[in-house]
């Protein structure tokens, strides 16, 4: 596969690792924001290759994981309404809400369908004019423009039974919240490659500018990640802090203007509830008043009741980087992908799921 396999070359990986090992002397603590990076790091065993001076923590970049229980409870309550079809990406299905999961309500007869694109959800709306189709908008700035596109297409094609529920969140404010919380002292951040493809590398200038924090934007193949670590090691050793775009084949300085415009046309910035971070100002998206008739939250006002956290669940700590998954007492003992207590174990981007699936090889734990 062109432009994919080349970025998995074992020989080039070896050279990058040698370079990292040769230069790294100071202890460095790096956070990869994005759950996709956490998965790639564990799936390729990248931590095994790194010198002991480099420590990797995962951040809150798992959209499913940071969705507050209250939002999921709302979606579940909606699914139980007659005449409702809930369209969602697959990850959300098994996430435990306060009392149930979408998978459970589906087994009880609710019409919950997995889609791979918002346009699939639009097709479902077209095919079921007598029902209301609500798409669960979970995701960061990579997904929000695709939801915006679907809302605009619904309007253009006169599809009146398509709605979006926005639980979308913004990544720079979340990163800022982690730094402001000051719980972990970081030496550098690996920036999310696909979010930044949309928002542009310049969106991260505040990190070196306000926090003296180096940031390298990385793609998702092993060479991309190793290369980002290498640059962060160099910056750490040299005492420099800059934004470096190491995913130039996809990321521009200004990002994708078409996607940004579409997102801004349909959504406006609002405060949002993050699992693990609480309420963060100006960190989420809601549909603009002009699109109120597509806004599920406005059209289907339902109170799902008070949200409830599962006792013992430490997802919040994992998301803030203050706990590695194997450090959670429930990890593997009680909380597994088959029986998840929290979303981090069940989401494809979840750190706990990555550790569980690819894990530390028994006998080789560092």
């Amino acid at each position: 596969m062109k432009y994919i396999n080349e970025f998995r070359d074992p020989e080039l990986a070896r050279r990058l690792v040698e370079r990292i090992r040769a230069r790294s002397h100071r202890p460095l603590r790096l956070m990869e924001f994005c759950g996709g990076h956490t998965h790639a790091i564990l799936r390729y065993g990248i931590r095994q290759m790194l010198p002991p001076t480099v420590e990797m923590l995962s951040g809150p970049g798992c959209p499913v994981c940071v969705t507050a229980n209250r939002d999921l409870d709302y979606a579940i309550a909606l699914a139980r309404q007659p005449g409702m079809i809930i369209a969602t990406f697959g990850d959300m299905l098994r996430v435990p809400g306060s009392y149930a999961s979408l998978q459970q309500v589906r087994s009880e007869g609710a019409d919950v369908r997995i889609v791979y694109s918002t346009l699939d959800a639009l097709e479902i709306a077209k095919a079921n004019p007598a029902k209301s189709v609500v798409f669960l908008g979970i995701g960061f700035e990579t997904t929000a423009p695709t939801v915006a596109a679907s809302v605009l297409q619904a309007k253009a094609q006169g599809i009146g039974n398509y709605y979006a529920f926005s639980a979308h969140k913004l990544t720079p404010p979340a990163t800022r919240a982690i730094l402001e919380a000051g719980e972990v002292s970081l030496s550098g951040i690996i920036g999310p490659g696909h979010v930044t493809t949309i928002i542009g590398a310049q969106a991260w200038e505040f990190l070196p500018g306000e926090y003296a924090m180096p940031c390298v934007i990385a793609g998702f193949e092993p060479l991309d990640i190793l290369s980002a670590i290498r640059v962060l090691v160099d910056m750490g050793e040299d005492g420099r802090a800059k934004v470096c775009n190491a995913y130039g084949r996809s990321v521009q300085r200004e990002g994708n203007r078409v996607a940004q415009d579409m997102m801004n046309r349909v959504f406006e910035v609002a405060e949002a509830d993050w699992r693990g971070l609480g309420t963060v100002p100006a960190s989420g998206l809601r549909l603009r008043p002009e699109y109120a008739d597509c806004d599920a939250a406005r059209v289907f006002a339902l109170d799902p009741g008070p949200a409830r956290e599962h006792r013992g669940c430490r997802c919040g700590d994992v998301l803030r980087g203050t706990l590695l998954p194997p450090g959670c007492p429930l990890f593997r003992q009680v909380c597994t992908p088959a029986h998840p207590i929290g979303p981090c174990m069940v989401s494809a981007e979840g750190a706990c799921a990555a550790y569980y699936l690819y894990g530390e090889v028994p006998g080789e734990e560092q």
Partner: protein
Amino acid sequence: MLIKAIDRDGMAEVEIGGANRRISLALTPEARVGDYVIVHTGFAISVLDEEEARETLRLFAELEAAQEREGASL
């Protein structure tokens, strides 16, 4: 993924490893047949810059030579 064909409503036929799929170019209207695109949940989010990709791989390949020079100068 490689764009094989584009139709009038902004949907493209893309291919990877011999498998084909239809995705939307709504976020990358500048994409053309023959371009590689990065795809996220059924939408192309960027047109891959092939020159950048090749340049990046070149830099990785040059690391070994650079390391040897560094080693020699210590």
